[in-house]
């Protein structure tokens, strides 16, 4: 590959930042257009990643490797596989949409757009990094623009929310940082080579105790990010206070960094401990699913409702990852994309309602369908997608996750299924209260229907909602090989390690020697 496509995608937004820096802050329209243009270009140049992606190999593709800090063996090492591909596309897709959704922002437009574009660089950077150090740099870099987005352009309690967000995330990630340094020295001890390359780390054989502590460190960082119950308390605050675009990016992409981290780091690096942690994490996920749904049920505030529904949805994603089979993990990756689309769209829609009425309280709405029918159609589609109606994207992910979980642990699957029922309850009830019934508030009679800009924002999302729902194989076939390889890796390593300490833990050996690895074709036939 002669053109450094991934670097281009990662750093083009930064070039946009420099362009905007040169502009006069009074030139708001120009700044908006520039950032829209830059992020749209980034999206279009990220499309070849999908079309040129070779789904027959699990090797990293579009790889670029440059020496960065040679004395520590740190490289600028990036590349993608079937797992990160869709998350990158999700990030490049949601950024122009968020920029477009922020057209009404009038306060400090220049700084706002700089933050958005920096955020895009950081998000893409996290997903492309194959060097653990580089990964961490992007991971932390992402905090700053998000912190500013919530803190400057947020709601009334924005300062509290943004500091909470920043501190929670940093608190988790510092331990991950130590664990990364730990892996670095462990790798040196094993191979006599100083490197932060993730692919080298994959080859390490670590004892159970070492794996355990490193796993805990990574787990804290990722679980806070996801967020898993009980680490979720920063999320509702951050979402409620964040501006619409901030919520979209936060729910759409940032939360996925956590789940992505589990797949990229925890599972292949610490397979044995991950396996041992299945019950713990699955129960946390299940509690998250039910708890998130129940709390969403009682919210008066639309945005809070959507925020808690995120906790519930991400519980499903975690459950799928820790099903340790191809359906579960592919379902999880699909669900990450789906959640990004449908929850992103929900936040956008709530934002649009807020722009019209300057309130987000469910009780302030009612009967809107009569006034704004086109808007209602979009809202309905997105709501149904979030519930998981067959034919729309949400169904594919949740179904695969539940199939996967059912195969490994029937009990978990049967409890988690109730989350889907609850999702239908809280979403439909919300929709009914907001959109149906009689109009009870005078203000609602004057509402304007969807504008052209809003159409441009929602149509691509709704298109993808249908596309993934009807033809999910366009996603699944790209990730099959990578996910299979991941499972092979886990299986092999867990075997090796458990043989080494087989005598200590005979039961574990029995479990670990048969991690559930499925055949690729199985999932293909289903879809």
């Amino acid at each position: 590959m002669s053109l450094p496509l991934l670097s281009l995608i990662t750093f083009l937004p930064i070039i946009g930042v420099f362009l905007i820096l040169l502009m006069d802050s009074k030139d708001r329209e120009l700044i908006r257009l520039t950032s829209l243009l830059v992020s749209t270009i980034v999206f279009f140049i990220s499309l070849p990643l999908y079309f040129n992606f070779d789904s027959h190999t699990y090797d990293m593709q579009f790889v670029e490797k440059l020496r960065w800090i040679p004395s520590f063996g740190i490289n600028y090492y990036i590349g993608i596989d079937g797992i990160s591909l869709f998350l990158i596309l999700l990030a490049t897709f949601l950024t122009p949409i968020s920029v477009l959704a922020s057209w009404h922002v009038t306060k400090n437009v220049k700084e706002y757009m700089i933050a958005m574009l920096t955020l895009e660089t950081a998000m893409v950077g996290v997903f492309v990094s194959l060097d653990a150090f580089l990964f961490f740099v992007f991971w932390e870099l992402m905090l700053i623009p998000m912190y500013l987005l919530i803190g400057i352009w947020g709601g009334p309690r924005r300062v509290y929310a943004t500091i909470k967000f920043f501190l929670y995330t940093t608190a988790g990630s510092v331990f991950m940082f130590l664990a990364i340094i730990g892996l670095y020295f462990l790798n040196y001890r094993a191979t006599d080579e100083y490197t932060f390359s993730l692919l080298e780390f994959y080859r390490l054989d670590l004892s159970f105790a070492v794996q355990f502590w490193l796993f805990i460190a990574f787990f804290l960082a990722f679980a806070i990010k996801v967020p898993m119950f009980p680490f979720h308390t920063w999320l509702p605050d951050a979402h409620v206070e964040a501006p619409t675009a901030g919520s979209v990016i936060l729910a759409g992409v940032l939360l996925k960094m956590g789940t992505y981290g589990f797949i990229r780091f925890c599972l292949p690096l610490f397979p044995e401990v991950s396996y041992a942690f299945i019950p713990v994490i699955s129960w946390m996920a299940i509690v998250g699913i039910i708890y998130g749904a129940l709390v969403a049920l009682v919210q008066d505030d639309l945005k809070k409702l959507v925020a808690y529904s995120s906790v519930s949805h991400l519980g499903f994603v975690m459950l799928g990852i820790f099903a340790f089979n191809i359906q579960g993990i592919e379902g999880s990756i699909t669900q990450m994309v789906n959640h990004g689309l449908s929850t992103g769209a929900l936040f956008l829609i709530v934002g649009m309602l807020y722009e019209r009425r300057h309130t987000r309280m469910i009780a302030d709405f009612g009967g809107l369908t009569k006034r704004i029918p086109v808007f209602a159609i979009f809202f309905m589609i997105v709501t149904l997608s979030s519930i998981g109606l067959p034919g729309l994207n949400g169904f594919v992910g949740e179904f695969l996750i539940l199939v996967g979980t059912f195969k490994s642990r029937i009990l978990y699957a049967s409890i988690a299924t109730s989350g889907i029922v609850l999702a239908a309850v809280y979403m439909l009830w919300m929709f009914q209260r907001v959109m149906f019934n009689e109009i009870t508030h005078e203000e609602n009679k004057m509402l304007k229907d969807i504008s052209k800009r809003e159409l441009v924002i929602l149509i691509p999302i709704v298109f993808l909602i249908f596309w993934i729902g009807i033809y999910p194989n366009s996603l699944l076939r790209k990730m099959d090989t990578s996910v299979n390889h991941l499972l092979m890796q886990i299986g092999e390593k867990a075997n090796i390690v458990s043989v080494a300490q087989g005598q200590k833990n005979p039961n574990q050996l029995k479990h670990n020697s048969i991690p559930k690895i499925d055949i690729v074709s199985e999932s293909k036939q289903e879809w």
Partner: protein
Amino acid sequence: MTNVSVMTFNILSVLPILVLAGFGMIVLFVDILFSKRLGDKNILAYLSLAGIIIAAIVSRGTTPIALYSFNETFVIDNYSLFFNFIFLLSTGLVILISHQYMKRENINYGEYYALILFSTIGMMLMASGADLLNIYIGLEVMSISIYVLTGLKRSKLTSNEASLKYFLLGAFATGFLLYGVSIIYGATGSFNLKEIADFLINKGDVTGPFVYLGVGLIIIGLGFKVASVPFHAWVPDVYEGAPTAVTAFMSVGPKAAAFAAFIRILMTAFGSTHYEWQKIVYVLAILTMTVGNVVAVAQTNIKRMLAYSSIAHAGYLLVALVAANTLGVSGMLFYLLTYVFMNIGVFAIVIILSQRNDGFMQINDYAGLGYKHPLLAIAMTLFLLSMAGIPPTAGFIGKFYIFSAAIKSGYIGLAVIGMINSVISVYYYLRVTVVMYMQEPVREFYPLTISPFIVAAVVISVIGTLHLGIFPSKIMELVQQSILTMR
């Protein structure tokens, strides 16, 4: 002393020091002889800067071997050359940021520049000392200048108080250091670091407890200078009371010098007994980080906050000292350089915003700065993020370096405590940015007069902070080279 040492008076080896001393004298004379005609005394700042630049040119480059001179009491190696670079850089930046401040506060005395140059000489002596006495003399030259500088604002009570406090406590600390030195001399029969090391390796078991006592006292003396807990009580008051430019000066150079001596004494002379002193430094590191960070959270005055933050940074540096490996030492060198940029950067902005007689020093005064003076606020944010250790800034790479060293030596608990502290520090550094960007101004911003000097200092600091954060490899190679010729 048994081994025959050649008397070498290699005058070239002390050339940078002589240059600084010469320029210091010139500044004094010019100030006295032409005080009527000087007017705004700009010439003194130019002269001092010229002295620093010439000294930097003289001491640039690297040396393949350690060059000893003056009866093996003075050494030029890459380590001391690197520290010379740090001292000259920080002093140069301080002169850039202090020029306007001194005029505004009506304390633009010629002594100021001379004392700063003399103090820098002391630092260079400390970093180049191959002998405990020489290090001690350097320490005194440095400290006495700073005692005077602290009290430069004669008419202000807090400045006087700070000076007196610093002097009294500093004298005690020096006493401890001297006790330590003399006990070591008694136990090993030498002031020379190399000879002490040889003695300890060959017949260290003979004198056990005395050596430990001596090392302990030396650690107390130097621990005072680097502001480590529990020898930190002077820091907040002295930082707050001293003229802000002096605070900036003493928060960087002298700290680096004390660490230079710390590293050289502990690693060279007492390298063989590191299992013993590591335990002490381990406790000091934890206390220093934790107290510094926790107390900083409660501060409302920016200078006091920076004082506690400076204590906390000393704690991080001590972590690397505990690691006692080459990674740790080179990490400290790297971190000290990043600290020069970020700390002087912050102080430059504090000085730009401050009003006469330390007005505008409350953190809350900064409310709305992000909109009123966006560039200043962005620079300030960058420095604070760097201090908090957030990428892509120098502070992040520095912390990475230091904690890598700790983990490499197996001090994982220490690294975890350090990281928890780092999270605490994020809170109070962020609070300043919160105030700048997310709160409405509580009072008017006065029109600022910004001299090109101070702008240059801020720009250099910004470039340094970003460059070391994004492309640190050149400097890393330099610091790794710097410790090769050390023993």
